[in-house]
């Protein structure tokens, strides 16, 4: 085997029961948990240390954020549906759901864009106060993650999907891990939303 044949790319490892990429993405998610964990810890420390900290709902646009929450949740469903479609061998449906997922992701970013624009007009900037600092930094970082997810999904919808013909299993595996990442981003928002907007 002078060529590097790497095992468990398609087939799960007999003992661990997972493929390399699945394990890899879960480890990546673990590191992401620590990243956002640190952000949340900082948020707590800063907030308890500052008597003048406003309630999110007094200054932020709740309806808009609620809409965004709904969008993201829906996109999670379509994402998992696109995977299920592959499992049911319906490539056409996969493409449809994946497309919807991507569009929803974009919708989320657009709404976020409006939200930011409003803040800037009312000249509220990160430097305005630590509240806005935290608000922009955390939602901004989360936004970047959404963007990353959109790009990855675009890849799988287009160029990446060629793999379906040659290695269907491998392709399904990738859609699953892409989904894992996407759901995680959704999951982060599920905490961001109440703790920054509603409290």
């Amino acid at each position, binding site marked *: 085997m002078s060529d590097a044949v790497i095992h468990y790319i398609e087939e799960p490892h007999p003992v661990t029961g*997972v493929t390399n990429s699945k*394990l890899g993405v879960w480890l990546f998610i673990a590191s992401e948990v620590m990243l956002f964990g640190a952000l949340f810890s900082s948020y707590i*420390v800063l907030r308890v240390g500052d008597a003048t900290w406003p309630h999110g709902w007094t200054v932020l646009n*709740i309806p808009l954020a609620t809409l965004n929450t709904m969008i993201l949740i829906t996109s999670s*469903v379509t994402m998992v549906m696109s995977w299920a479609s592959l499992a049911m061998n319906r490539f056409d449906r996969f493409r449809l759901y994946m497309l919807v997922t991507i569009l929803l992701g974009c919708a989320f970013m657009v709404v976020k864009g409006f939200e930011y624009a409003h803040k800037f007009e009312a000249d509220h900037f990160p430097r305005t106060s630590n509240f806005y600092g935290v608000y922009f930094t955390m939602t901004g970082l989360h936004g970047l993650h959404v963007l990353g997810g959109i790009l990855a999904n675009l890849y799988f919808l287009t160029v990446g999907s060629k793999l379906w013909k040659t290695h269907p299993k491998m392709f399904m595996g990738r859609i699953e891990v892409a989904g894992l990442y996407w759901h995680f981003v959704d999951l982060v928002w599920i*905490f961001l939303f109440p703790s920054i907007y509603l409290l």
Partner: protein
Amino acid sequence: MEHAAHSPEEIQKHVRTYIAVFVALAFLTVVTVGVSYLHLTAAIAVTVALIIASIKASLVAAYFMHLISEKKLILWILIITMATFVSMILIIFFTNKGVMHVVS
């Protein structure tokens, strides 16, 4: 993927759960927003918000991310991570709280 082995019927079942989870998530979102309009006292508001968020998060993790049927290895990784994460938050919080200050 062990899921690949799944027969279309099972996948159909999956799909139904996904829809159910979606409804639950949407509902809980409405609830948490609704509660926020009651302007409860900080302590209660925080607890309620966090409990609801945790429920939603667990739904996503369990069903969309298939944790409910996931392999031990993955679960262990997550357990270790959560432990580290929680200890970080708590320790930072309490150290910060215990800092010596002049009361003047």
